[in-house]
């Protein structure tokens, strides 16, 4: 109990200590960005308060809403009281959020980049995690095939072991050029593709089998300016990148695999990417 109180006291003091003033650039940046951001109409926004409701009650309410919607739909499609019928747009159901853990086959929605929605359709046998990542695992945490959702502000680093300072690619072509500039990687010729309604390039690359860093850093394949990104590790060193032009921004989706990954699962990984629907 004393240990609990000690930890409470330490945490209280530690959190109380620290920066508490936002730099003016934060509000200035927001002011600049909202001038380019339209507000959504209220009818498109659900009320944010739905938290304390118990799951059974939630199910009852959802069920009641479905019954009401079906009943209303039957009246409208069936012609209504005057028998004329009304053409109404079919509502597009929103796939459920990508959960952590084993996935049932079907469509899921993830949010790999703030403000961006990524919808994919997944076959049986795949695992989801962290709202952006899917894998086919030969054993727990052994991602024989991986698919990573769209990311931005990235590039292929000039030096995978010193990736901090990597400037984000300004365009799809610039990204491809940065990958091709890596003469220590085996890189394919880029192929023109269209994924999720956006055009871009697809390129395959293989990092050396002994890709490790003697300076203790991770061996980065994709990097952001702060040096974080996606790393090659172990057998996970064969990459396919889809670099898409999304409203002028180069956005990257990747599929990586072990050399011994089952070919049908690799094909499934590519197929998952091809089902992408991206809403910036």
């Amino acid at each position, binding site marked *: 109990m004393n240990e609990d109180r000690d930890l409470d006291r330490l945490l209280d003091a530690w959190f109380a*200590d620290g920066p508490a003033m936002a730099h003016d650039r934060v509000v200035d940046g*927001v002011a600049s960005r909202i001038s380019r951001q339209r507000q959504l109409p209220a009818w498109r*926004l659900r009320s944010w308060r*739905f*938290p*304390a409701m118990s799951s059974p009650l939630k199910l009852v309410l959802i069920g009641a809403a479905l019954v009401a919607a079906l009943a209303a739909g039957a009246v409208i499609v069936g012609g209504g009281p005057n028998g004329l019928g009304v053409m109404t747009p079919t509502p597009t159901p929103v796939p459920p959020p990508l959960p952590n853990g084993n996935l049932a086959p079907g469509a899921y929605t993830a949010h790999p980049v703030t403000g961006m929605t990524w919808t994919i359709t997944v076959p049986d046998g795949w695992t989801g995690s962290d709202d952006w990542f899917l894998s086919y695992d030969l054993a727990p945490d052994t991602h024989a095939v991986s698919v990573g959702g769209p990311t931005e502000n990235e590039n292929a680093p000039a030096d995978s072991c010193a990736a901090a300072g990597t400037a984000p690619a300004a365009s799809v072509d610039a990204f491809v050029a940065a990958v091709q500039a890596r003469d220590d990687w085996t890189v394919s010729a880029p192929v023109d593709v269209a994924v999720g309604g956006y055009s871009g390039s697809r390129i395959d690359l293989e990092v050396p089998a002994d890709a490790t860093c003697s300076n203790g850093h991770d061996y980065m394949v994709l990097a952001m300016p702060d040096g974080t990104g996606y790393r090659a590790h172990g057998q996970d060193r064969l990459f396919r990148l889809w670099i898409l032009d999304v409203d002028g921004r180069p956005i990257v989706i990747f599929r990586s695999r072990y050399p011994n990954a089952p070919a049908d699962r690799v094909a499934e990984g590519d197929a998952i990417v091809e089902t992408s629907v991206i809403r910036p």
Partner: protein
Amino acid sequence: MDLELLAAAQRGDEAAFVDLIKVRSNRLFAIAQRILRDIDRAEDALQDALVIAWRDLRGVRDPDRFDGWLTRLVVRVCIAQATRERRRTANLRLLPVDGPAAPDELISVADRDVLDRGFRRLAPDQRAILVLHHYLGYAPSEIAETLGIPPGTARSRLFNAHRAMRAALEADARAAAAGGRTA
């Protein structure tokens, strides 16, 4: 709560929105910095959250809940950002500790470093819960409302976050005793 400013901002008045967030930015930044433990990332997350707030502002129907709604947006964006970072760079690396370096009366530099390393080992939602509880002084019911989870879940997550923090500190102490790499 300035009802007129909120109403104007909901009608699309950008200046009114900026006035609304100016007086709240310090508090929201402090929350983001404590979850992310990095000033630059906290500023990025806060900006992203405030742009989302502008976009979705017309969904706020109860002005009394505006501050809670904003806090929730910031916490969610921070959790998402921390989750991506954690997943994308699996091996945690020590980053510079932001904030004053001078010791104070309540907590030593050594304690601060140990806490920082332990905190970085936690899952992002556990970090957020500890910040809500220990920095904002939220009770489990308020944590529940902020995170959109049932109160019982908030209680158990708070318990687990404390347990994880304690385990992280113990692991750090063991690593230090063994002379090994601690993060």
